[in-house]
Every structure is written in structure tokens, then in C-alpha cells.
């Protein structure tokens, strides 16, 4: 579904990604783990078009999306939940969701119903402004807003950031549910253990390169991965 081949991305003169090769198949949950500054978020930003790769190719459903602006990429069916949630704090929950449906793809009422079954708490809070929600609720809202554009592929950037473990569990369970409904997911996480448990396959990124890859259950047992990322 999504394929990155030898992708190089720069911040000015600094090379943040030096040849990323990555593939996401239809229906999968794929996680991308690694340390701070390894290039996880940069990879996502490059896929969603906010950053442009200098070299390499990005294919989505066989088409190159390398030079397409971000809003066109959303139209093609890739939605990103940005790092730090970035909900609209002064708009109500409902208005946030309406904004998510900006492209007008799919039936609004049906999608709303689906989101309120996934996150009943958002239904209760629909008239509250986004800024008054708790961190977990804001993350739920950010995911819901991204879902409103009926994506085929959902990019999640650190959904567990700054949340209590119990909330993280809840969010990860919902990610699994969203995947069951047919949305392919690429998850970027620092919380390596949780991410590997949730995902089918995983990539470990180090200094802008993929260091390990494989099925998540094997990565969990890989000695080097355990040492470096799982705290053994």
C-alpha cells in the first residue's frame, strides 16, 4: 500500500533521514520505533508531504506522492494525527470533528456515529471546547478528527505522549479496533513495548536509517532490540 524507497530528507544542511526503506501493506498495523531524534516523526512528516524528500521515492497505492502537497495527500487517503495532538483548542469537540470532515468525503452522520461508538466520551463532551478536554480525550479527538476524512492509511505520531498508562492502554485498544474496521495504520512510538505488542510488523530506526525490521513478535525477542529499546 505504502512504500518508501531510499528516502533522504534534510533539515537545511542536516540529513535527518539517510535512506529509509519501509513498506506498509493493506490492513496492517506497522510500528516505527526508535530514540529521540532518530527520525521517526521526520519519516511521518515526509510521508504526509509537510517535508519533501531530497532523494528517494514514496509510493502510495502504486502512485508516487513524493511531490504532492499535504492537502492532496490527505485527499488520496493518508491522514496524519500530528505529534502533540494539535486539536483546535478554542473550537468545540463537534466543530473539531466538522473541521476533520473538511474534504467532505463520505457520509458525515455515519462517520460521526462510528466515532461516537469508538469514543463515547467525545459524544458527552461534544459541546465543550477542545482545550478543556483532558490529555487522553484530546488524543481521542485528534484521532477522530483524522478519521473524519475517511483515510485508508492512518499515520499516528506518538499517541501515548504524556498520557497515563491506563489511558494509553485504552487508546491502543481503540487503534486495534480502528484497524479491524479496515484502516491500515502506521504508528510512530517511543513506548516500544506497547507499540510492538499492538503491531503486526515493526521497524527500528537509528540515526535516520532502518536498523532492524521484522514481525513484531520476533522484534520483541530480538536481543539487540530488547537491550536498546525495551530496557532489558
Amino acid at each position: 500500500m505504502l512504500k518508501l524507497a531510499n528516502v533522504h530528507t534534510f533539515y537545511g544542511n542536516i540529513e535527518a533521514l539517510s535512506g529509509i526503506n519501509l513498506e506498509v501493506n493493506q490492513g496492517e498495523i506497522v510500528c516505527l520505533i526508535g530514540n529521540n531524534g532518530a527520525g521517526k516523526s521526520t519519516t511521518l512528516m515526509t510521508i504526509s508531504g509537510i517535508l519533501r524528500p531530497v532523494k528517494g521515492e514514496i509510493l502510495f497505492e502504486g502512485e508516487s506522492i513524493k511531490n504532492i502537497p499535504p492537502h492532496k495527500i490527505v485527499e488520496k487517503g493518508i491522514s496524519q494525527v500530528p505529534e502533540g495532538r494539535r486539536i483546535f483548542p478554542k473550537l468545540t469537540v463537534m466543530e473539531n470533528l466538522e473541521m476533520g470532515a473538511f474534504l467532505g468525503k463520505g457520509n458525515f452522520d455515519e462517520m460521526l456515529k462510528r466515532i461516537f461508538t469508538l469514543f463515547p466520551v467525545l459524544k458527552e463532551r461534544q459541546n465543550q471546547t477542545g482545550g478543556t478536554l483532558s490529555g487522553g480525550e484530546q488524543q481521542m479527538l485528534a484521532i477522530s478528527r483524522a478519521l473524519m476524512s475517511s483515510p485508508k492509511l492512518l499515520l499516528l505520531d506518538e499517541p501515548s505522549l504524556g498520557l497515563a498508562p491506563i489511558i494509553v492502554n485504552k487508546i491502543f485498544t481503540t487503534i486495534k479496533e480502528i484497524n479491524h474496521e479496515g484502516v491500515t495504520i502506521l504508528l510512530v512510538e517511543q513506548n516500544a513495548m506497547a507499540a510492538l505488542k499492538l503491531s503486526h510488523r515493526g521497524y527500528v530506526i537509528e540515526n535516520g536509517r532502518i536498523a532492524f525490521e521484522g514481525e513484531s513478535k520476533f522484534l520483541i525477542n530480538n536481543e539487540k532490540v530488547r537491550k536498546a529499546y525495551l530496557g532489558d
Partner: protein
Amino acid sequence: MSLLKPLIISIWFALLFLPFKGLKAALFFLIILLLTLLLFNSLFRYKNIFKDPLQKIFNLFEFNILTPLYESIYLRYVLFAALLVIPFFVKDYVLDVAILSCIYIILALGLNVVVGFAGLLNLGFVAFYAIGAYTYALLNTKLGIGFWSALPFSMLLTTIAGFLLAIPALRLRGDYLAIVTLGFGEIVRLILNNWDTLTKGPNGISGISTPVVFSFTFYKLTHFYYLLLFFVAITIFITKRVHKSRIGRAWIAIREDEIAASTIGINTTMYKLYAFAFGAFWAGLAGSIFAAKMQFVSPESFTFMESVLILCMVILGGSGSISGVIVGAFLLVLLPELLREVQLYRMLALGAGLVILMIFRPRGILGGKSASLRI
């Protein structure tokens, strides 16, 4: 806490008076002001006592006192009727002020699109006003084209100017954007001031003709008053509709968080371009009317201070709120006129008033709910 705010305000005003009237007067003023503010404060606290009986009376007229006055539909009818009959009762001076207010209302509503809806700071808005005014002035004096035929041209030209400014400005944000727009405003003014062969430089262009409708020529203030009332109504109607449309939504998303806006599929570049052009469009209208009314334009009317004044109207009234911006524009035209009596203290009082307003209502007179989509 409740004592702190009045105290700060009184001291602030007293300090402003100090250089003019000396220590004694300043102290006296401080005490008087402090007492007045405290009195108001306590009255404000007990306002709920009056609310119930008042509501009972108003219920008889199906009038809900709890909805803010400016939202009540009755008030709008009354206001509209009052505006229509005003010219029959007032002096020319009052009408002149009303006309000026209307021009500024159109300008402020235009700037509100850029600053209030899309959240882009534009310090050179007066440039579009100038382009609108000069386009009509030149078309009329050089080619003899009438107001109504020239109007579309001058609005089109200002809209294009809006696009042109937006293209380099789009890469910038916040402070940097403000500086570029500021530069644009100065460039336009300097061109008008120095291109002697076309614009007659600082002497300005005179002898511009007034609008004509079916061989009826606008020459009295009353005519201009109704003309402006008509255009203000159109401006309000259209900006309101656009604000509620898809474009308006995109602007709000960009204002609230540009990166988030692009992740939900909004073409941020395009919509920022629209905001600049659409704002400039109204400045073109206001400029053309200004030129037709004054029958004279010169670069002096389009200084940086004008840009600041229009920006003040938007911020003061409540950035993003249409009714707020109208109130802001009206007040900032009216107040200097009312304060003409006190000559020396006029700008002082105005400045101090702005400071107070920003302390009490940092989001503007009618601001606050402006973030929301439903106004």
C-alpha cells in the same frame, strides 16, 4: 483582587494627567476615579438582584434579557429603522461623521477577514484602500469613466494587489509577515507620492466626480449616507456568508493551527491567498467611495497611521466578530469627534481608553465567542 484592577487603572490615568496638570490634580483625579470604579464594581456585583424583576417585565414583550442586547432581533429592526431616518433629524456635521464611520466600517470588515478570520497580521492594509481610491480617481479624471463603471475595475485591481502582496508574504508568519505588509503599505504610499506624472504627487488629484444613478447625481451628504448604508449592508451580508462557508471554515482552521489545518486536507497556501485578496477587495470598495465622496485624493490620507487605526478598530471591537468590528469602527470614528471639546487631551484620553478596554476586555468589546464557528 477586586481592588487591584481599579487601583491600577486609577494610577495609570493619574500618571497620564501628571505632566499636564501637576501633582495635586493628578492625586485628586486618582481618588475620584478610584471611588467611581469601586462604586461601579459593587453595583456590578448586585446586578443579579435587578435581573429577575426586569426579566418579568420584558417577558411581556417576549424579550429575553439574558441574550446579549446586540444579538436581539428587535434591536436590529429598531437600529435599522433609526439608521434610515437619521438624515431627517440631524445636522450635516453628524451626517458627515456617520459617512466616515461607514467607510471605516467597510475597511475594518475587510481587514477583519485577514486578521480576524484567517489570523494573518496585516499592517499595510491602507495600501489597498489607497489603490482603490486612486484607481477610481485616475479612471475618472483621465478617462472620464463614471463611478459605477469604474467601481468593478478598481475593486478588481485591489483584489489583484491583494494577491500580489500575498504571494511573497505567504512564506512568512507572525512578526515577519507584519513587517512585509508594513513595507508594502509604505511602498504604495511612496509611489503615489512620487509618481508625479500620473498621480500629481503630494498635490493629489482633485475634481473627481460623484456617482450618478439614472441621471440623478449624488451631491448632498444625505445621498452619500444612503449609498454607504447600502454598501455597508452588502459588506456585512457577504462577509457573514463567506465566514460561514467552507472558505470561512478553512480560515478558522488556519488561524487556530496551521499545521493541523494542513493535516485535515486544507490547502493553507490557497486559503491564505484568498483571505488577503478578499480583504483587499473591500478596501477597494471603501477607497472608491472615499474618492467619490471627497472628490479629492492625496497620499496624505493613506499613511501608516491609517493602517494602525483600522487595525485598532478590528482588535478593539473584537477580532473575528462582525458586530464587534462594526462597533469598534464606529467608536474609533466617533470618540475623537466627541472629544474635540477637550482638544489637548483628546488623543490622551483615547489612548488611555484603549488601554483600559484591553485590560477589561482583552478580546475586544464584543469579542470572546469569535473563535467558534457559529456566531
